């Protein structure tokens, strides 16, 4: 299968990329890892007349802590997450997710920016970013702006990014002491999109009470779901199993799954609860210093 014809541009700066996106207002698509876009084009589900390849822009691939944030550049490859000792140590939710994304060959090209920007409810990183309280930094003709992950996803394949804008960075509040996080999904085949997935972050005080929490869900709605009520119910409570189960039950109620080839809605809803409980338990164990 060969994709339909398109004009190809490979700008070497963010400014040039934004200028191209403005010039072809609405007609151009950004090409990052290409592992969602090119299959869609080969199947004729997408036929953009212009591709703006951002892989030639230097300085868009990095993972670093700076100014109170963990910053991840848009063209950082999924496998770069797995190679990061910093992430394994302080943000294991992201290495959990990376390990479960597709397969190692896909992860060599698929990018963090593409995963969070594509808007497929089956993408794994959006729920993680919601749990972590991340914001996305966008560059556009009107200048830079940021959008919280929790407000970014409007509908399936519809996000807050304007056709003239480029996501350049994901910013995550820097990990604090006694913070733990985890991600897990279930899939029909290894490497497939999630039937359901859950992401959690908790921060504990020294007596084991939850001082902050975030929960995100994958594959159980039209977009990734920010389970804000479930997370709020945990704050101020002891991180014991009864409270984690209660939060998981609320997250289950916040899910909005549809029946499809990946499973019936009732099953996915039940799994949203089961998985939320599992990742909360794992996050709490990690916050207490376990793995």
């Amino acid at each position, binding site marked *: 299968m060969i994709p339909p*014809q398109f004009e190809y541009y490979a700008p070497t700066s963010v400014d040039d990329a934004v200028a191209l996106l403005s010039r072809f207002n609405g007609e151009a698509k950004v090409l990052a890892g290409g592992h969602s876009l*090119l299959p869609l084009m*080969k199947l004729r589900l997408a036929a953009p007349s212009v591709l703006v390849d951002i892989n030639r822009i230097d300085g868009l691939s990095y993972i670093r802590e700076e100014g109170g944030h963990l910053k991840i550049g848009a063209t950082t490859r999924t496998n770069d997450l797995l190679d990061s000792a910093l992430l394994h140590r302080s943000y294991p939710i992201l290495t959990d997710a990376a390990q479960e994304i597709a397969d190692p060959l896909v992860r060599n090209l698929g990018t963090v920016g593409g995963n969070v920007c594509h808007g497929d409810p089956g993408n794994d990183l959006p729920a993680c970013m919601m749990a972590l309280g991340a914001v996305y930094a966008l560059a556009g003709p009107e200048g830079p702006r940021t959008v919280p992950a929790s407000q970014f996803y409007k509908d399936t394949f519809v996000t807050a990014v304007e056709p003239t804008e480029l996501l350049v960075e994901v910013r995550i509040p820097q990990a604090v002491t006694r913070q733990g996080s985890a991600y897990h999904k279930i899939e029909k085949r290894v490497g497939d999109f999630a039937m359901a997935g859950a992401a959690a972050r908790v921060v504990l005080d020294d007596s084991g009470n939850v001082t902050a929490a975030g929960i995100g869900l994958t594959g159980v709605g039209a977009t990734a779901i920010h389970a804000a009520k479930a997370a709020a119910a945990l704050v101020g409570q002891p991180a014991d199993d009864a409270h984690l189960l209660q939060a998981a039950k609320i997250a289950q109620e916040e899910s909005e799954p549809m029946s499809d080839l990946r499973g019936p809605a009732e099953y996915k809803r039940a799994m949203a609860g089961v998985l939320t409980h599992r990742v909360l338990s794992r996050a709490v164990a990690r916050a207490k210093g376990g793995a």
Partner: protein
Amino acid sequence: MAATARPVTPAAALTTSGAPTTKIHITVNGQLLSADVEPRTLLVYFLREVLGLTGTHVGCDTTNCGACTVHLDGRPVKSCTVLAVQANGRKVTTVEGLEVGGKLSPVQQAFYEEHGLQCGFCTPGMMMTATALLARNPNPSDAEVRDAIRGNLCRCTGYVNIVKAIKAAGKKMQETPPAGGGA
């Protein structure tokens, strides 16, 4: 760079008459080449149809099976989901680039000796993934080998011997100094 590149001409089947093309320079198996390609040309078709390097197979053509695996700057990728223009200025290694001086690489030799193939269709991709794995981790466990080849499907289900071959190659490479091998 352009001055020393060997120009190659895309096959008629890969060009649409009158369609705009982009000039690319790619180092394939150590040789710098230049070509004018349509931007929509996929790397796997550029390798097979333009360069005649048919060792790289097209299997599913949907980013699932890994038969088309090649190295892009040393990392294994599925070449059915990479545009040739994305490889501009970069190094591509195909299965034809594994042998050195007419001798099979340790991975190729081990697939032969351990019977790491049945029909052979997945084998080029398997060997490219194995070569990249062993360059990073010369002594992988069974679990690490199986995790590394998650993106390469063998429809003969010959995984036991594939895993044996990859581990045997790793052992051989540790015993003898590397003589190249494409990674």
